[in-house]
């Protein structure tokens, strides 16, 4: 058998989360190998609205609200710098976005949730409550069926494909990118870790698990636990249209290229990432109910993709107690949090120590006391 390759830090998973971490580590001078699957992967990056989303994030978990708000604020500089380094325009825009409510009761609940959240969070983010007339002033296309909305000017969008490509292409100049290297097994080995792939083994001083849904299988080998589950979302995409939608809507946006993408479904469907006729239809109905003119837009594509969901919906950042040097990073908001993953998190991982302030994100919060 061939002797294993050697690397400093092995990052497992080349989606947006893994690429952000690898990019950040390589920028800090680390020797990094990024392991990625082949062309068919449950890649959440490819089934993604591309929202950099603040409003309502972290309800019930103020630490998550603060993390999100800081990352979202960092997006301008992050998009600028990464765009300049990679030569790829990330299409980052921050026009602000609406969350539509279709009943008075829903609007009232929504506004209370956001008010409560603001009271708990330490990083400020303002929102407005609007009635239909208020929305109409900004967005004349809105349906009269929309009773009101919350609007937050911190919400923005990016092109998730461009984000991923930019991260990978800059990383590639400094680090070792290994597509087509699915990781079969991870295990402690001497003072480091062994990464097993069909193309051979690697020995790494440290290992970062950023494999999305794959984390669940791989984590136990490192003494970590990733109690995550897939939550399917289905999305429709229209042909390119002349720009008409200046603001984001939580489940609808027009891309810089002109296509309108929409969808908000949330289903427990295991690892089945197919679209289904019933959800596609409901998605179309909801979009038309919000913006009636969408009825005339041609849908050219659909996606279904699997969110990587923890029990409380918050990220998990953890180091293995049994095998220090092994870290778990698992989130379902890889786009919004990209500046954090490539920035403060990468700094911490480079130093080999997570910030104690991130304790709310440790996986200990899920452990059930032994009975």
């Amino acid at each position, binding site marked *: 058998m061939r002797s294993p390759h050697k690397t400093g830090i092995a990052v497992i998973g080349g989606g947006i989360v893994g690429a952000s971490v690898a990019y950040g580590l390589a920028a800090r001078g680390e020797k990094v190998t990024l392991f990625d699957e082949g062309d068919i992967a449950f890649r959440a990056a490819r089934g993604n609205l591309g929202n950099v989303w603040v409003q309502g994030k972290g309800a019930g978990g103020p630490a998550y609200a603060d993390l999100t708000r800081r990352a979202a604020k960092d997006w301008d500089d992050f998009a600028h710098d990464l765009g300049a380094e990679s030569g790829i325009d990330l299409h980052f825009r921050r026009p602000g976005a609406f969350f539509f409510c279709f009943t008075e009761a829903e609007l009232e609940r929504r506004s209370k949730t956001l008010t409560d959240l603001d009271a708990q969070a330490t990083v400020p983010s303002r929102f407005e409550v609007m009635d239909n007339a208020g929305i109409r002033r900004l967005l004349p*296309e809105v349906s009269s069926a929309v009773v009101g909305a919350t609007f937050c000017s911190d919400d923005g969008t990016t092109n998730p494909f461009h984000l991923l490509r930019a991260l990978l292409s800059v990383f590639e100049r400094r680090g070792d990118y290994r597509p087509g290297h699915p990781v079969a097994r991870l295990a402690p080995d001497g003072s480091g870790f062994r990464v097993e792939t069909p193309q051979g083994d690697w020995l790494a001083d440290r290992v970062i698990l950023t494999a999305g849904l794959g984390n669940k299988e791989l984590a136990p080998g490192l003494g970590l636990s990733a109690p995550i589950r897939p939550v399917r979302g289905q999305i429709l995409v229209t*042909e*390119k*249209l*002349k720009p*008409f939608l200046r603001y984001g809507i939580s489940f609808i946006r027009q891309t810089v*290229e*002109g296509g309108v993408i929409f969808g908000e479904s949330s289903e427990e469907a295991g690892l089945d990432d197919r679209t289904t006729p019933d959800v596609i239809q409901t998605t179309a109905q909801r979009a038309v109910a919000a913006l*009636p*003119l*969408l009825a*005339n*837009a*041609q849908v050219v594509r659909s996606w279904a993709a699997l969110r990587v969901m923890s029990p409380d919906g918050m990220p998990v950042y953890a180091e293995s107690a049994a095998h220090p040097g092994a870290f778990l990073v698992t989130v379902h908001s890889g786009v919004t949090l990209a500046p954090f993953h490539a920035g403060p998190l990468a700094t911490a991982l480079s130093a080999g120590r997570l910030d104690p302030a991130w304790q709310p994100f440790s996986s200990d919060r899920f452990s059930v006391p032994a009975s």
Partner: protein
Amino acid sequence: MFQRLDLREFDTSFTFAGRAIPAREGENLAAAILRADIKAFRSTPRSGAPRGPYCMMGVCFECLVTVDGEPNRQACLETVHGGMVVEPQAGAAEINR
């Protein structure tokens, strides 16, 4: 330039980009426009390059036109009706309220 083998008289007409085009009721729209020696049916959303029918069987989406105000019609799958107003599709479609 296309020549006609079918020498039956035209019995109607429609307009393409404002130009009157003689035709037979119910014939294929793309064929009728091509016969009028028009090659470009639209321009692309990305670069604005001119395009015309390529496959004539509904696969390539190169012959997109606006028919009576409705964008994105595939001319190769449409039939001619007297008086219909056909416009080239310039770049991305614009949806109507």
